[in-house]
C-alpha cells in the first residue's frame, strides 16, 4: 500500500475544511452549531471574549449533548450578554456576584448530583478580574474540593467592563487606567501579577489547560476533553480586547496569534499537576510584532524606543519558550 497523502490544503488551521471528513471538522464549522452566545450581544466590535466564549461553550455543548449549565461571574461577558430583560445565552445560565462564580458552580453541580441528573454538566466562567483577583478564593476552594466543574477564564488582561483597570493578569508595561504610561517606569510594574494556570496545577486537579482564540482546533479539543472527565478542571483562554488593548477590531485574532507565536502566551495542558503536552510555536516572532499592534504598549515605541523594557519582555517570552518547550 502506498503512503496515503495527508495534505488537506489548509489542514486544521482554518475553521472548516471541505476536504476533511465531517467527523474531523470543528464544532464552529457546523451549520447546526448551537451559537450558545447569540447575535445581538453588546460586546465591542471584534471582541475576543465574545468569540472565545462562543467557541468554548459551543464545544462544551456538543461534548455534553447540550446538557450544560453555565455560571457567570460579573464582568464584560455578563454585562454585554444580559442587559435586562434580554439574554444572548442559548444555554441555562446564572449570574450571582463578581467573586462567587466558582462557589455557585460548585453548588449547581451539587444540586444536579442531589437530583440524580448525572448527565448535566456545569461550567463556570468569568474574566481575569473575576477569576484571578476577586473570585480567587472561591476558585481555589472549588479546586481543592475537586468539585465537578469546568472553570473557564477568559483572560483579556484587565478590568475592561469598568474602564480598563489593572488586574493581576495585566502584563508588565501595559498601560491601563490605573497604571498610566508616565513617570520613570510607565505602565504596569514588572515582576507583579500571578499565573493562575500554574496555581491551578499546584492544586493537583485533574486537568488544566491554556488556549487561545487564535487556535480554534486546539481550544475545542481542550474543552471537549475537559467535558469528558470528572472533577475540577480549569481552562485559561487568551482573548484580546480591542478597546482595552488599543488594537484594531479586525486584528483580534492576529494579536492573539502573535501572543502565542512570540511565546508570551504558552499553550499547554497539565494532568494532576504535571504538564503533559504543549502546542509548539509554528513560526517564532519577536515580541515587538505582538506589542506594536497595541496602543497600551505604544510608550515602548517612542523616539527613542524603550529598549530596556522591550528586552525585558523578550526575555519573558524566551523564558516561556524554554520552560514550556514551545519549540520542538
Amino acid at each position, binding site marked *: 500500500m502506498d503512503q496515503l497523502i495527508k495534505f488537506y*490544503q489548509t489542514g486544521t488551521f*482554518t*475553521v472548516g475544511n*471541505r476536504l476533511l471528513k465531517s467527523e474531523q471538522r470543528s464544532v464552529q464549522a457546523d451549520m447546526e452549531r448551537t451559537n450558545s452566545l447569540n*447575535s*445581538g450581544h453588546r460586546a465591542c466590535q471584534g471582541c475576543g471574549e465574545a468569540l472565545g466564549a462562543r467557541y468554548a461553550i459551543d464545544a462544551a455543548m456538543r461534548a455534553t449533548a447540550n446538557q450544560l449549565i453555565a455560571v457567570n461571574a460579573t464582568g464584560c461577558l455578563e454585562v454585554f450578554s444580559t442587559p435586562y430583560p434580554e439574554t444572548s445565552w442559548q444555554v441555562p445560565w446564572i449570574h450571582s456576584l463578581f467573586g462567587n462564580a466558582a462557589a455557585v458552580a460548585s453548588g449547581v453541580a451539587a444540586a444536579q448530583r442531589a437530583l440524580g441528573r448525572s448527565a448535566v454538566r456545569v461550567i463556570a466562567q468569568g474574566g481575569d478580574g473575576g477569576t484571578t483577583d476577586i473570585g480567587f478564593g472561591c476558585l481555589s476552594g472549588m479546586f481543592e474540593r475537586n468539585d465537578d466543574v469546568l472553570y473557564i477564564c477568559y483572560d483579556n488582561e484587565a478590568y475592561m467592563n469598568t474602564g480598563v483597570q489593572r488586574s493581576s493578569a495585566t502584563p508588565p508595561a501595559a498601560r491601563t487606567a490605573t497604571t498610566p504610561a508616565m513617570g520613570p517606569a510607565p505602565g504596569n510594574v514588572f515582576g507583579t501579577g500571578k499565573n493562575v494556570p500554574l496555581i491551578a496545577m499546584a492544586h493537583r486537579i485533574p486537568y488544566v489547560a491554556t488556549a487561545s482564540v487564535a487556535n480554534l482546533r486546539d481550544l475545542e479539543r481542550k474543552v471537549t476533553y475537559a467535558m469528558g472527565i470528572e472533577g475540577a478542571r480549569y481552562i485559561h483562554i487568551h482573548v484580546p480586547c480591542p478597546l482595552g488593548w488599543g488594537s484594531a*477590531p*479586525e486584528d*483580534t485574532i492576529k494579536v492573539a496569534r502573535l501572543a502565542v507565536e512570540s511565546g508570551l502566551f504558552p499553550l499547554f495542558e497539565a494532568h494532576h499537576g504535571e504538564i503533559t503536552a504543549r502546542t509548539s510555536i509554528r513560526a517564532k516572532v519577536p515580541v515587538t510584532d505582538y506589542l506594536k499592534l497595541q496602543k497600551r504598549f505604544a510608550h515602548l515605541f517612542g523616539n527613542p524606543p524603550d529598549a530596556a523594557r522591550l528586552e525585558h519582555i523578550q526575555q519573558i517570552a524566551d523564558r516561556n519558550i524554554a520552560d514550556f518547550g514551545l519549540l520542538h
Partner: protein
Amino acid sequence: MDKPFAITLDVGSSLANKTGSWRTSRPVYLDRLPPCNHACPAGENIQAWLFHAESGDYEAAWSALTEDNPLPAIMGRVCYHPCEGACNRGQLDEAVGINSVERFLGDEALKRGWKFTPPKTESGKRVLVVGAGPSGLSAAYHLRRRGHFVRIVEAGPFAGGMMRFGIPKYRLPREILDAEVRRILDLGVELVLNTKVTDILDTMREGRFDAAFLAVGAHIAKRAYIPAGEAARMLDAVSVLRAMEGGEKPMLGRRVVVYGGGNTALDVARTAKRLGASEAIIVYRRTREKMPAHDFEVEEALQEGVLIRWLSTIRNMADEGTLTVEKMALDATGFPQPTGEIETLEADSLVLALGQDVDLSLLNGVPGLTLKDGTVQVGPNMMTGYAGIFAGGDMVPSERTVTVGVGHGKKAARNIDAWLAGTVYAAPPKHELAAFDKLNTWYYSDAPKTVRPMLDIARRTSTFDEVVHGLDETNALFEARRCLSCGNCFECDNCYGVCPDNAVIKLGPGKRFEFNYDYCKGCGLCVSECPCGAIRMQAETI
C-alpha cells in the same frame, strides 16, 4: 401581574438588539482574479478547475478546464506555464505545479474516455477554419460547441500544425496529440487534409461559408546570409523537425551545429543528439540571460550533453564543414557587437533556427487588410480588416506559443459567434487582481512542490521517449491541494467561525456564505482572517 418580585418585563432574546446599526463599514464577498488565470494566455480558469481537483473530482475539473482549452494533455506537456510564474504560492514556498496537474487531468480524460458534449442545436451557420494547428483546433472546438458547422482545411498531411511539425516527440508523444485532435473532430468538426487554401475569398464562396478563421501558422524558415561552400550542408530547423515526422529521418551527421537561441534551436539540438550526433552545439550571439528559449529547456538540453557557445556568430561555412565563428561582446545597450576575434568549429551540418515567417499568399486580393512585419493585423476581436475574416495564432503578431494559439482560437470563436448573430461580443469585466498582499497565508499548510519524475539521461539522448513523466493520482491530488485559491472562496468556514456576532450565515456545501447585516458590527475580522482575500470592507453610506 403574576411575575416574580421586582420583575416587570418578560425575558427576551438579544436578537431584538440589531447591532448592525453600529456599523460604519460592511464586509462584502467578492471574487478576485487569481494571478494564474490572469497570466494564462489561453484564458483558463485555473483556480476553478483546481478547486474540483482538490476534492478528487477529476472529471468536473477536466470539464471546467476544457470550457476554455480543449487540449489539456497537450498543454500539460508543451505549455511554458506562465501561470506558475505568476502563482502567489511562489512567494510562500514554491509555485503550484499547475502544468503537471493539467497534464494529469488531460491523461486521465484520455484514459477514461471522457468526451465533449456536442451542441444541442445547430445554428445553420458555416465557418471555415484554415489550419489545423492549436489555434485552428481551438477555434473549431469553441465554434462547434456553439452549434456552428465547422470545416478545417489543412495544407499538411496530418492535423496538429507546429505541435506535430515543430515540437519533437520526446516532448509531445503523437498518440496524445492524435487523441486530443480526435476528440475535437468527434464533436462533428470536419477536417480536410492535404489541401492548401490559395484564395481565401474563393474558398469561402465555394463552400458558402459565413465566416472564416485563419490560423496558417508560421512555417517558412527565416534565412541569414552565410557564405558557404557548395558542398557545405546547411539546413533549416523547420524542415529538420518536419522531416522527423516522415519515414526518412534527416541526415545531420556526427557533428551538428545549430544557429539560434530560441526553443526551436534547442529542440533541433536535442533531436540531433537522439539521432546519434556525438556533438550538438548551439551557437548563439548573445548570453543565456538574453536567450529567448525557456530556462527549463536550456537546462534539460545541457543535461543531455548539448553544448552552447554564447556570444558567437557564424561568419561562413567552408566545403569541408569548417565554420568560422566570430566572438561577440555586449555593448552598453545589451546588443552584441563583433570583436574581430575569430575561431573555427568543425561541423557535418549547420541548422539555422532563426525564426519563421508566415505564408500569407492565401490573402492575395483580399481588400482592407493590414500586413505588417510579415503578419496580419487584427483588431481586439481577432477580425482582420476584411469583415468576416478572423485570424490568430502565429500569423498575427504574438508570442507564438501553443497556448497563445489556443487562446486566440477561443477569443476568435467568441467574436465570430457574436458576429454571426449580428452582435458584438462584450467580454465580462475583469475582477481586480488577487495580489499576494490580499492573502492571509498563515492558514495554508506548508508543502513544497511535487517534482515530476524524469527519464534517465541515457535513454533521453538515445530515444525519443517522453522526457518528463506525469504525476500519479496521489501526487496530483497533493499538488492540486497546494492551490491557495487566491481571491476565490473555497469554503474554509473562517468567516463563519471568526465572527464574534454570528453574523455570517453558512449556506451549505458549494453555496458559500452570506452576511447577516442585521447583526454585523463591521469589525472586519472576517476580512483579516479570510485566507484567500475573498472579502472586502466597504464604507457604509450614512
